[in-house]
């Protein structure tokens, strides 16, 4: 394996080689433990740093979209804002309501953060760079993701406050509704790769025909599946436009209203980590993981982990963009969208994937493309027309700004 690693470019495999060098120096008995620790520490360092960068990126980005500057006091252009936020969160008093259930109130953020971190174990960050290559990797990811709902409930219920309980019920209803489409949207990628292991799925997409990559995004079922996955991932992370459970203007902070200081920071961290993890899974399933977009040597010489983080940054910017652009969905609109549109489209997508696999691959895949796109587009149009509201949209008039 070391020979293959060196052949694939030393810069690409620098972390793998470093780990092997470190392991060669540890005594034999401690090697499994040392291997685990050496693999885990970069995860614990990199993703919270990415979280810190994302907070400042989001605030400045949202500010610009809303025609204002973001934070610009701390450091050059406000880029050291996360440090200030972190210090504030750490030194704030930890207020726990007297009527709250102390044990459950304490454990809710702990479980949330633990589940968010554990989900990174099966995501391949670069070539040969996955923490654990589980045979049922994608199933593990979704199983850990479903623990998050329990912690949301614990947070909301233990605070013994009406706002937090209401926020928790809404959040759980939303998360459960969008978990089924999330899983179903990822089934086509699993079907095509023939394995639940994330490493196998990425390796199946890492080839090139000419310069064109084998990403699953460049297939009709891949486009639709990716779109559905993106919508469901936005809803699972309680991001706008699905952030009714925690919208500040609606329900003040939903289920973490009674948390202050470090526990609030933990919830914030866990939510963003969950967002990164789901984005990373989307990258793994549809965007080819760590493989470069085009097969030209200019792109393939760039290390695999750089591509992974570039795609992840693209996702983050997309989420921030959507947050600044779209208005919030109402609860019934949210649930109706999940059960009446996303779920049928996800089931249809699975059927179309089977169709794609069994249709003949003509030159440029033209027959497959036309048939599959038609089978996907017609029900999409029909469903969206049947779900449209009966209200007519009028020309917008401004009452006071004449």
């Amino acid at each position, binding site marked *: 394996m070391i020979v293959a690693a060196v052949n694939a470019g030393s810069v690409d495999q620098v972390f793998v080689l470093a780990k092997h060098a470190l392991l060669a120096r540890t005594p034999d008995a401690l090697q499994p433990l040392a291997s685990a620790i050496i693999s885990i520490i970069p995860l614990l360092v990199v993703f919270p740093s990415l979280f810190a960068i994302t907070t400042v990126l989001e605030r400045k980005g949202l500010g610009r979209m809303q025609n204002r500057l973001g934070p610009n006091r701390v450091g050059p252009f406000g880029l050291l804002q996360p440090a200030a936020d972190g210090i504030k969160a750490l030194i704030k008093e930890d207020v726990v309501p007297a009527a709250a259930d102390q044990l459950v109130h304490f454990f809710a953020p702990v479980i949330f953060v633990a589940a968010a971190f554990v989900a990174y174990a099966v995501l391949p960050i670069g070539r040969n760079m996955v923490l654990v290559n589980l*045979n*049922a990797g994608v199933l593990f990811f*979704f*199983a850990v993701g479903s*623990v998050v*709902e329990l912690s949301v409930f614990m947070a909301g219920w233990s605070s013994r406050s009406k706002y937090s309980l209401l926020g928790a019920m809404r959040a759980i209803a939303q998360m459960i509704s969008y978990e089924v489409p999330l899983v179903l949207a990822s089934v086509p990628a699993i079907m095509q790769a023939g394995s639940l292991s994330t490493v196998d799925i990425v390796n199946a997409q890492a080839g090139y025909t000419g310069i064109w990559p084998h990403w699953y995004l460049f297939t009709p079922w891949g486009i639709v599946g990716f779109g559905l996955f993106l919508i469901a991932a936005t809803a699972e992370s309680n991001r706008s436009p699905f952030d009714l459970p925690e919208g500040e203007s609606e329900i003040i902070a939903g289920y973490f209203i009674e948390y202050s200081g470090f526990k609030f920071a933990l919830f914030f961290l866990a939510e963003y980590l969950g967002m990164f993890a789901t984005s990373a899974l989307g990258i793994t399933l549809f965007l080819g993981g760590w493989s470069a977009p085009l097969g030209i040597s200019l792109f393939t010489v760039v290390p695999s982990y750089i591509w992974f983080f570039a795609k992840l940054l693209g996702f983050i910017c997309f989420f921030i963009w959507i947050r600044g652009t779209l208005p919030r969905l109402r609860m019934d609109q949210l649930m109706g969208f999940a059960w009446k549109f996303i779920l049928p489209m996800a089931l249809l997508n699975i059927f179309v994937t089977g169709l794609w696999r069994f249709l003949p691959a003509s030159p440029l895949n033209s027959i497959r493309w036309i048939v599959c796109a038609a089978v996907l587009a017609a029900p999409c149009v029909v469903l969206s027309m049947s779900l449209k509201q009966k209200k007519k949209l009028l020309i917008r008039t401004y009452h006071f700004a004449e």
Partner: protein
Amino acid sequence: MTATFLILAAITVAGTAAAMGLRNAVHCVLALTAGFAGLAGLYLYLGAQFVGFTQIMVYVGAVAILAVFAVMMTHNPGEPEEIFSRFWVWGAVIAGAVFLTLARAIRLAFAPADATPATPAPSTTVQQIGDALMHRYVLPLEIIGLLLTAALIGAVIIAMDPKDDPTLEEDAE
């Protein structure tokens, strides 16, 4: 009897005992979740990866949430709660008798000279499980599908409030 097994067994037994013994129903369900997680750990320890992850996804992620929602929706703070029935002694006696009978049967089944060499964990891949589901166990798979559909529709209809019945009125979506 490795340390891993003993720790996982302790978590499971503590969680389930708390689930059946605590006063507050929501605490019971949360302790039950710990018990389910311990069981999932045991399945992983025994080498059944797929079943372990399915246990977490279905039991911790769905059944526990369902139970918690049901507890919250049927919460009546006004009534005095008796948590155990009047005849709890008999219940404990029966459960104890069942456990002692089973334990004795298990003990007797394993003669002391039965120290079989530890078999290596069978490496089951999801591929094999999928093959088995689609070839040998396809009939139970389809029946389970029908069962789950019937349970889904039935649960929605049973739990639906009569005043929410959509066949009675049609409101704007």
